[in-house]
């Protein structure tokens, strides 16, 4: 049930397929919830729907991995926060715009409150800012040392690439109507 614990050297393809299948199921499930929750969206709200599909993609990716990884925990936390905010406000239109603003502001302040006096981990690679850039791209790695960062990035890339494959397959399926 957890591909990370199995020896990947024996049969990496089987593990990759298992992950892909689990991602596909979860993503389809989330998409279905998406459709049944808010129906009757017209074309002017395509952006919002695309945003919701994107959220469903990241949510399904993170929930398949669960709380095993820092990046998945971070994504799930962020999405849960968004959900709480949207439930408290009644107007759907204002939610999305304020969500974006709150999301970024809240994340920024959260990061600052975590490291009030310390700087980020300094860079054992001696490269100009590559590690810092990587920390910005992968969620949940602000507090990690270089080793953990690389490990987390590898897992994140693997899951993200699989999620992209699942989505490509779905797009192909839907396009052949």
């Amino acid at each position, binding site marked *: 049930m957890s591909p990370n614990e199995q020896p990947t050297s024996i049969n990496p393809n089987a593990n990759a397929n298992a992950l892909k299948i689990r991602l596909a*199921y979860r993503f*389809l*499930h989330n*998409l*279905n919830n998406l*459709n049944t929750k808010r129906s009757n*969206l017209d*074309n002017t709200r*395509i952006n919002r*729907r*695309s*945003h*919701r*599909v*994107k959220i*469903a*993609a*990241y949510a399904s990716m993170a929930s398949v991995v669960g709380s095993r990884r820092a990046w998945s925990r971070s994504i799930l936390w962020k999405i849960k926060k968004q959900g709480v905010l949207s439930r408290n406000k009644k107007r759907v239109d204002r939610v999305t715009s304020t969500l974006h603003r709150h999301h970024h502001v809240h994340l920024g302040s959260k990061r600052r409150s975590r490291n009030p006096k310390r700087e980020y*981990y*300094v*860079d*054992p*690679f001696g*490269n100009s800012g*590559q*590690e810092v*850039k*990587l920390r910005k*791209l*992968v969620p949940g790695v602000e507090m990690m*040392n*270089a*080793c953990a960062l*690389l*490990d987390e*990035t*590898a897992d*994140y*890339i*693997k899951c*993200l*690439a699989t*999620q*992209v494959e699942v*989505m*490509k397959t*779905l*797009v192909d*399926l*839907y*396009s*052949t*109507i």
Partner: protein
Amino acid sequence: MSSRRSTGTPRITDEQIIELVSKLQQLLPELRNRRSNKASASKVLQETCNYVRSLHKEVDDLSDRLSRLLSTVDDDSPQASIIRSLINN
């Protein structure tokens, strides 16, 4: 490497970093074909950043296309029933 901080955790060895960098290198589509460890850590990091960014952009693009396609699929089409059967199983 005097810039490393002492936080009480065991110091990161160079071997660990090298191993992780090579593991990361195997995942990157650009550098996988080289089949050597000659790619420097800086190159691997750079390619990783680029790859993650391109993956994010692909997710955006695909979710855009998916949302458009989903809106045009009505509930009675065969694809929708396939999807539904997949979900309910």
